[in-house]
């Protein structure tokens, strides 16, 4: 019975971490929006807003389209949330403490990020409707473009650790964080992170210019679940980014898990600010920048990081 209990406890822990993170990001997004627009920041309504949206979603009926792929529509949000959970399982919370520490943690995380494109494509393709399908094809182009910069940026963090384990990657930053050791890594990772969570300037598949894109045909709980899954993915990206580049649980005075939360919150705050400060990028421009600029920069980052280790 004990392995089963362990699995249940781990699942509850991951769901809790993701829920707290997603709620924090939703509230932070509201605060950033009010601050950028010059509206007064009223704390209680801003905290209540995500709950109000959830309540509204629960009371709104669902919609259907002509000849949709029912299984795909049902699976897509669950797949995206599951991928966020898979990434979160790998997060080192304190020295030697992570829910799972596979020797190939880096590859597991990369596989989770790669499957985001399957989840988003499925979500846009399954309603059998024009605008969602446009969003799905857009994300195909975006995802294939960010894949290599993402892998290279993460790979550079595995070099000083001489291991693909995320726990080892954090341990290798005891004396010097990767953000200092590889200054190019975190900016590339953040750009890619915005694309993975299709958020802010890189919200191309679900953008307002497509009337919601892959979510255009969603209503009620289905729409809310997709948003929650997306926020969870952003939280996982921020948490793993804090572990890979900002030294994870390392920090003075405060205990390790608090530092993990603080650093994750810092990256989430940057994402919330990007949502309101940066305009949406055209897809051609993003694809061009990803292949022409981010891939060479990420390669340079790998070479420089490798040269320091020789």
């Amino acid at each position, binding site marked *: 019975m004990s392995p089963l209990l362990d699995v249940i406890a781990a699942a509850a822990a991951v769901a809790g971490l993701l829920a707290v993170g997603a709620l924090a990001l939703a509230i932070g997004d509201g605060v950033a929006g009010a601050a950028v627009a010059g509206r007064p920041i009223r704390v209680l309504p801003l905290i209540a807003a995500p709950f109000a949206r959830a309540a509204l979603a629960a009371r709104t009926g669902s919609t259907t389209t002509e000849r949709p792929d029912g299984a795909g529509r049902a699976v897509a949000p669950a797949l995206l949330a599951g991928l966020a959970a898979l990434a979160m399982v790998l997060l080192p919370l304190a020295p030697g403490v992570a829910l799972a520490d596979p*020797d190939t943690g880096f590859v597991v995380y990369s596989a989770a990020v*790669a499957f985001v494109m*399957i989840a988003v494509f499925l979500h846009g393709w399954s309603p059998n409707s024009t605008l969602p*399908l446009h969003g799905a094809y857009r994300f*195909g182009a975006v995802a294939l473009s960010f894949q290599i910069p993402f892998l290279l940026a993460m790979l550079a963090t595995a070099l000083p650790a001489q291991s*693909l384990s995320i726990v080892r990657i954090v341990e290798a930053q005891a004396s010097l964080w990767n953000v200092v050791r590889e200054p190019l890594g975190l900016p590339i990772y953040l750009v890619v992170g915005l694309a993975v969570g299709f958020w802010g300037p890189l919200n191309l598949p679900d953008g307002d210019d497509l009337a919601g894109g892959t979510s255009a045909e969603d209503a009620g709980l289905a729409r809310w679940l997709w948003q929650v899954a997306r926020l969870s993915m952003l939280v996982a990206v921020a948490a793993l980014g804090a572990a890979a580049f900002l030294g994870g649980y390392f920090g003075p005075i405060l205990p390790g898990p608090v530092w993990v939360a603080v650093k994750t919150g810092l990256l989430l705050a940057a994402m919330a600010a990007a949502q309101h400060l940066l305009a949406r990028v055209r897809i051609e421009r993003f694809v061009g920048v990803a292949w022409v600029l981010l891939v060479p920069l990420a390669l340079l980052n790998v070479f420089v990081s490798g040269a320091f280790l020789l």
Partner: protein
Amino acid sequence: MTGALIDLSFAAFSLVAIVAGVRVFRTDSMVRAAFYLLASFAAAGGIIVLLGAEFLGMVLILMMAGEMLVMAIVMVMYMMNPAGLNPMVMVHQPRTAVVAGVVAFLAIAGVGLSGEVPSRPAPNPAAATADLGRELLGNSMLVFQTAGVTLLATMVGAIAVAAPRGRYGDAAEGSEEPGLQPDEEASA
């Protein structure tokens, strides 16, 4: 993981791999077929992880996501079926396919049953990954680097062919064919 858990995982992955593999041919849409194939491959990747080749199994799963998406989009582009949701039959030449499938299955099963199964325990995943790295950058380096450079050259060529700015001008502005008479083109 304990023995029972590994057996249970193996059974689950095998079931998913087989059922999804059958569904690839029994479904009626190219995009669905691609997603079922992805599920089948991902389950096979899970089995490879159970076998102790953690890196190879996870890399298989990682690579398949992009490959299957590209395959689905390219198939939809070729088949003039914009969303891949119009029903269509996913098999052709069924009799030949059945014969080929049965022969291939018997051959592989024969090899599996008659071959000797090694009994040495799998190395730990980290050691297996390190061995793979030494192989790729050691004895097999020439083979893999040759294949890698060839693939890279193919990619660069494909991008050059598909690039919006070609020999006859910008694709967005429409291009003009070269004249039938060589001197006509030269004088223009």
